[in-house]
């Protein structure tokens, strides 16, 4: 093979590689795109706050949540397995692409420092309950969430209380039953303490 032919071939190969990289980037954009998600999220932020940082204790913060968690919950709202008077109608008409785009957007938004200030002795009691029930096994170190499992650190207190009570009563949708099982061991007082502790918990 002559040098110039080899060079031309390698140039062609590089061009092809660049094209396929472009194509890959394009395909991934088609699967889940944060910028498209930002535009689609304009309705969401009315309740969930700018960038998904909720100011309402009953409405969850979405910023910084794992992408797969957001997709999973939106999916279950859409399918009617998880139900909420406010949320269900919004989810009802979302396409799979919408779910993936919204999740890509909200998961990439910075999570604002928690507004809630929990008294140190209350926070310590909450930390003990969280350790006793091994919340980190699924919710990950510092309770930051992972994969399909939500971030709890800095989540809104009233929202957490409602979810935990729902799990305990077996009325909150639960894919594999883990939270329903875990919540059976919590007293109502435990739930209150946990919710306050988690709501005041910042990123490490």
């Amino acid at each position, binding site marked *: 093979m002559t040098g110039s032919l080899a060079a031309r071939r390698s140039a062609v190969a590089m061009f092809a590689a660049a094209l396929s990289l472009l194509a*890959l980037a394009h*395909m*991934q954009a088609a*699967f889940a795109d944060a910028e498209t998600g930002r535009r689609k999220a304009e309705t969401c932020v009315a309740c969930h706050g700018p960038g998904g940082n909720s100011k309402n204790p009953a409405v969850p913060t979405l910023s910084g949540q794992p992408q*797969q968690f957001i*997709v*999973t919950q939106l*999916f*279950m709202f859409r*399918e009617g*397995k998880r139900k909420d008077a406010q949320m269900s109608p919004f989810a009802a008409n979302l396409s*799979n692409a919408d*779910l*993936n785009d919204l999740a890509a957007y909200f998961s990439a938004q910075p999570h604002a420092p928690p507004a809630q200030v929990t008294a140190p002795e209350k926070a310590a009691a909450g930390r003990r309950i969280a*350790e006793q029930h*091994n919340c*980190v*096994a*699924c919710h*990950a*170190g510092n309770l930051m969430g*992972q*994969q*399909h*499992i939500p971030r709890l650190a800095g989540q809104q207190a009233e929202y957490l209380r409602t979810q935990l009570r729902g799990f305990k009563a*077996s009325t909150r949708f*639960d*894919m*594999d*039953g*883990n939270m*329903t*099982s875990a919540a059976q061991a919590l007293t109502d007082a435990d739930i209150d303490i946990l919710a306050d502790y988690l709501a005041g918990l910042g990123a490490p």
Partner: protein
Amino acid sequence: MQTTLHPFAPHLTGRPAKDLPISTLKVPAGFHVEVWIDGVPEARSLALGDKGTVFVSNRNLSNVYAIVDKNGKREVKTILKGMNTPNGVAFLKGTLYVAERNRITAYAGIEDRLDNPPEARVVVDNLDPDKAPGHFWKFLAAGPDGKLYFNIGSPQNITMPNYTQASITRVDPKTGTLETYVQGVRNTTGFDWHPQTKQLWFGEHQRDWLSDDTPEDKLNVATKMGQNFGFPYCHQGDLLDPVYGKNRSCAEFTPPALKIGAHTAPMGMRFYTGNMFPAAYKNNIFLARHGSWNRSIKQGYDVIRVVVDAKGKAKSEPFLTGFLTDEKGDPPMWGRPADVLVMKDGALLVSDDYNGIIYRISYKK
């Protein structure tokens, strides 16, 4: 030290195959693995219709899909909607049967009317009176006796089951009459009958939180009705439970045909009855292992080949691997095999519920 082990969940919208490292999948020499179809969210149990329709179930969603293959062009049709954990699908004499968590329904002549499916005929209802969390999803298969077999799992990791639970139960599709077939089965999510002996072989998920290496999950064979496989007293055939095993003996129970690795999660399995693969594969078992979560070093996430000799002795070897990329990673894998299906041409389909993809494995000399 606190554990960090946790279950994994599928990507419920599915993930496009073109975004995944499909080319890193490995099969033995002469075999070829390719994507048969993607975009089938949480593709789980597979059943083959007489006219070639592939029926696909799922565990967390509410639809049943039919995939029609016309000259290599495949189309996914949603044929049933609004179902309650429709994990089990079986096809028998022109009728599709679906096992939801609470009931089994029948759809006669469905292959001729996929766009306009018949109303459900209820075969049996009230299979889940407690509605409790646990192993409530059901695998379904039609036996050589024309009856439908399904699991009623143990309600928790380790607990004393009630009379109906931790069993394989069968129902006569004509009358709805139920019979407990075998007991002491913590949970099975895949079984098939040996083409020659007609005996029922089934995978069994063993308990969690004892250790990384025990108990091993099992491949069992039921040589007669009424056998007990040990749960909750005895695990892996030779390990008494620290609580429930007190004052019991493993000798009371039917031992497994093969131990297949701790926490590897045996899912769908089929005897290979096709003519495409080499003759040595005839009547071998292909078994999908969903992969371990309750283990610090992950294993499974593959399809194994199990060879059963004339004396009924079984041994296994890897067949489809490559999903497990980092045994200490979280997640450790990019896909999870859930079921296998032998096609009419002898190729093997493998469903991957994590991504909503079905792969096809073929063989050429």
